[in-house]
């Protein structure tokens, strides 16, 4: 029995509209045999959805209905083309780790060289999942509780308005998980920090433990010139007096004073703050010069 199309409503095609150049799920093994860091995410959404939705989502994914996908810190935005004229916009909100949780994790990751070594070749060692567990972070490394409530991980919203997970979400998840398989470090982005920054912070952290501190200023070449200081044992006979170069130092004429020279060389601040930093630094430099000159002329330093 055929039914005449209802002229009063836009025609709803049986099949979703075709998308040209959409993300197509074309994995050889289908949904089987995903590695440990990707598998739970797909499996959990397929379980949470009704079998029909799961089935349909899988079909959407294979058909390349996912038109757009943007992965950003803690969030994935996707557009999935259904039967409507425009793709449905949907979002996965992942539970991001707090700065304190990140700090704990980075500190733990920096303790072993293997982590940053692996990260540098885009691998996610399984130990990271164990580590996040043992540190009892607010969320596991691999999210596995998808749903439509704010407590879900990811918490899914979709413009289709249907019960979550909807077929669009299932389709988009296929694409995300396929990407995760080759880019495992994307998990860090889902938890709030891009992998590049994670690696940097681990390295920073490692330098910090090696040197005792890490700092923003570069060091002068004299700092690393070991030829300036002979071994102590070669100075036993002249152990207490300053070397002759102290006279060279004293004989150097004073640096000609150029007002605000360093500040002007620095130029505008690239830090992106709104507070007029450079302006305040200018008056700070004037204050400290006045103070420095007073001390130089013999005023006590603790005159504050």
């Amino acid at each position: 029995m055929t039914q005449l199309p209802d002229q009063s409503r836009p025609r709803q095609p049986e099949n979703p509209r075709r998308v040209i150049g959409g993300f197509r799920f074309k994995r050889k093994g289908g949904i089987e045999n995903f590695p440990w860091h990707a598998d739970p995410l797909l499996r959990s959404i397929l379980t949470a959805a009704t079998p029909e939705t799961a089935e349909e989502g899988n079909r959407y994914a294979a058909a390349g209905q996912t038109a757009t996908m943007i992965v950003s810190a803690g969030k994935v935005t996707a557009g999935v083309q259904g039967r409507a004229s425009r793709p449905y916009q949907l979002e996965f909100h992942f539970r991001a780790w707090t700065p304190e949780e990140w700090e704990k994790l980075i500190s733990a990751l920096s303790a072993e060289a293997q982590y940053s070594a692996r990260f540098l070749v885009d691998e996610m060692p399984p130990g990271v999942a164990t580590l996040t567990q043992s540190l009892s972070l607010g969320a596991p490394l691999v999210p596995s509780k998808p749903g439509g409530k704010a407590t879900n991980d990811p918490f899914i919203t979709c413009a289709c308005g249907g019960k979550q997970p909807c077929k669009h979400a299932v389709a988009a998840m296929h694409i995300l998980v396929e990407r995760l398989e080759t880019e495992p470090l994307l998990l860090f982005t889902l938890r709030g920090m891009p992998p590049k920054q994670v690696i940097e912070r681990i390295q920073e952290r490692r330098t910090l433990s090696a040197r005792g501190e890490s700092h923003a200023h570069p060091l002068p070449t004299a700092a690393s010139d070991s030829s300036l200081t002979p071994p102590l044992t070669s100075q036993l006979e002249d152990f207490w007096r300053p070397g002759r170069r102290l006279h060279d130092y004293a004989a150097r004429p004073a640096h000609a004073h150029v007002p605000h020279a360093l500040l002007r060389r620095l130029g505008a601040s690239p830090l992106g703050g709104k507070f007029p930093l450079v302006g305040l630094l200018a008056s700070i430099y004037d204050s400290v010069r006045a103070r420095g000159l007073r001390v130089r002329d013999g005023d006590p330093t603790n005159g504050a």
Partner: protein
Amino acid sequence: MFVLHANWAGSALHLWGESVDAARGGKSSARSQAHPWSTPPNDLAKALDALKAGLGSGTPDTLRLLLPHLAGAQPQVLPSSKLAALLGRVNDDAQSLTLEPCTVSTLRVAAPHALDCILTLRDAMAASSGTTAIAAGHELEWWYALADFSVNAVADQRVVPTVIQERSGSFRGQWRPWLNDGETNESVADLTASMPAVVRAVDGADGQAWPIIDGFLAAATDSLVRDSLVAETYEESIEACDPTTDPHVAWLSGLVRSTNAIDAGRGGAFDLLRSARGWLGLLDDARESRALSLGLRLEEPALDAADSGIDATWRVHFSLIDPETNETVIDASALFARGEGRRRGAAQARDEELSGTLLQELARASRIWTELDEALEEECPTGIDLDTRRAYQFMREVRPVLLEAGFVVEIPSWWGESTSRINAHLLIDSPDELPPMMSQGARGAALGGGLQSLVGYRWQVTLGSQIVSVDMLERLAANKAPLVRIGGQWIDLRPEDIESALRFLRGHPGGTMTLIEALRMANGIDGPPEALPVAGIQATGWVRQLIAGTDGSESFRLTEAPEAFKGTLRPYQLSGLSWLAFLDRLGLGGCLADDMGLGKTIQLIALLQHERAVSNGQPVGPTLLVTPMSVMGNWRRELQRFSPELRVHIQHGLDRPAGERLRSAVESADVVLTTYAITVRDKDDLQTIPWRRVVLDEAQYIKNPPTKQTAAIRAIQSQSRIALTGTPVENRLAELWSILEFCCPGYLGSQPDFRRRFAVPIERNRDPKSGERLRHLVRPFVLRRLKTDRTVISDLPPLVEARQHITLSEEQTRLYEQVVKAMLQQVDQAEGIRRRGLILSALVKLKQICNHPAHFLGEAASGVPKKNDKGSNGSDASPSKKSGKRTKTAAQAPSANDALDAIEAEADAAGPIVLPPDALLPARSGKTQRLMEMLEEIVAAGDSALVFTQYRAMGHLLVAMIRQALDVDALFLHGGTPQGRRDELVERFQRSDGSTPIFVLSLKAGGVGLNLTAANHVIHFDRWWNPAVENQATDRAFRIGQTRTVNVHKYVCTGTLEERIDQMIEQKTELAANIIGAGDAWLTELSTGQLKDLLSLRRTGMEGGE
């Protein structure tokens, strides 16, 4: 009493001390590795607080250091160099040293107070001038320099804010010096290389210098900056802002408050660290080697340009410059013009690369000079046009910053020249003829009359080479252009300068003032309070001559030495005499500060002769000549030799005249010779006599703060005063002030004033301008020629030999006479070998007495001093009681060399030798006192000296004495020095980096074979009666490879056998032939009468009495 040391460890300053008494007592510690003389923290705190309240408020702590120890089963810690000097301790070279851990008790001063602690300590030590129980360890000088460095960094705005993440993960803000620019980096390298070993000898610090320098500098800079920001409540400016959302506020929260924590979330702080690193990294760009850098050349408007005023067009041209050679690779205009010609292939690719670099560099420069943004809006930027105001701003403000950032900036050459600015000139009119009052040199003229004489003056303001009037200045002020072209020349017209010039000309019509005022004003010291730069002084007549110093006293130059002067003056000496005579005629005093060996003595003697030659028969008043006791004999001899007709009265000795007798003795004398000590003792008499002149030899004896001696000398009435010194006074500012305060009272102002105006800027801030002003100011009154001056060097022969006639001290005199008396008695009753033994033994004793009483009394020979019988209390110093060992040794000495061996071996004490404090008093011997004076001048002048003695014991004594008196470690080579060590010593001396300017050698061990051309002074401290042996020793320095004049000083004690034998050898007497080459054996053949004649002390009236 303790020696204070400082170390930086664990982010804190540690002060610790070595107690002198504990070290002298040889106290050793029961606990192993605890420093045996470490001062208890309580004592340390008490003494520091007594020095300056609050200085001792550190927390008691301990610190483990690695210190040099004497190697052995139980290594013994060595005293610091300062302590060793105080103890008079000499290490035996042969013993090897090791580095061992040792724990000292300290007072820990937390980082924020470290700078304050060092600065306060330095000022308090300087102010106490030795009255405190604290002696500064030698390394403190280095700490003072480091503290100054950080203060200068703050005062010169060469500090940057930074962000630091600590090991704990927390972030903080910090202020630290910016050290990466070329010059500063070099200074840091200097400070690192000169860091005393002990500073980095903290156990566990791996001998690293950088963490210590970095730690202290950061702590010092941060505390100084932070304190002032907290005091000025900068915190309020960020109070209302949220640090977690604004990285600027987050950073400032760690910079302007008394706490340094950065209030931002972890991630925020981390981002802050990274972006701050990127920003500060921009500063480092200047250092990065670039293949090409941007050149900016400012071109002034063409001479025929329609407008040469405020709207004139200046242009900055861009180019690319090779920073290695500073050569232009290509001008931007040429580069872009070439692009239009459609070049092909590789050439075009090359051009595209060049223009890419140019644009990149322009973008980099535009961060500093935002006007460049305008040029970057063009397609092909080749330059930028500026009006006069912007051109001025470019030269004055932008250029220095661009230069610092590594750009090449070229501007018209007139910029910065004083001729391109408004200047004031002081014009002084004085006649060619000297004022009559002065030229007479009459009695009764007041001291410094010349300086007080009135001179006419007026002021002139110049713009470039043009003299400008008030009218013209007013017109310029109305114009308000920062640069104007006058007569084809651009003038830098700072509005503030025009204002001050106007005020100045209106307020200073001219008139008369005293010469002292004029000279001080012309050098920008007193006078016009307005900020107008005083370019200098222009004068006519005699004032002009005065200002020009020796260079200008042409018309007053003497062409030959006075007739009655029995000697020849070298050309530079004649010019010195002219200068002295010229100042004298003006009633002015001066300081003749020629290098040692250039003949200050004979220039002064020539002056005395000269003034008598020109007095037209008028009587000339007497000159009072004050000298150290040690050179009195020399003066007497030189006076006699060069000006025998001058009548000399020697005011010395126990039987010297006083009161009326003294006055009449002075009446009939031309020169009265006396010592510093007698001047104090006889001050009441000396002050009532109207002297023609007072002359101080070795004028550095006039010390500051003023002593009783200085006061007594200053109170003596005279028409003029002359100071003689061989030390480089211009570098020793406290000394310079004291000496000029004597010669030209009031000229340099009060002491605190001088310190503020010159000493601090020159010594601490290394301000070249203040140095230059001071040189100009003192030039009329200080004449210093160096041996290396071109005008002098051509007059000097390669080898200058002179005898130093030394006067025995009272103690030496008494000992000498006792020994002679005892010997003559015994010799009369002895015969044969016993008689010879007695004579030889006495001879050795007499030579030792001439050297130093401690040498004779054996105080130097043993580790433990003998009974403290220094002879001032008389008779128990009887020589006959002294050991027979020396007698025997000497008696067995048949030949010269064997004798030397024997003498050398005489004091073969092993281990460190500790001398009693008295043994080290140079004043106990005329020779050692003179040696210390000479060595002080030699070291100060950057010269170096060999000191030869026959006796190892005397060598030890000298090394210890030099260490104590001059704070210099002398090298010492003697017969017991192992070969390897010898080579090392010679190598160290020859390195001539000035760190070891004095080399003491025993004649036997060091007289042959060595090459010691680094020395330009050779001192024969005691004599070996064989000119050949002495000459051989002299030839260590005077040989191929020697580029300077070598001065040989032979010490001879006046009135003693030394002088008698010296004369015999000089006169080549028959006896002399026997003496040479025969050791002392010939003496034993003399009859008792001959012996008496030869050995008895001939008194000259100068011995003792002090």
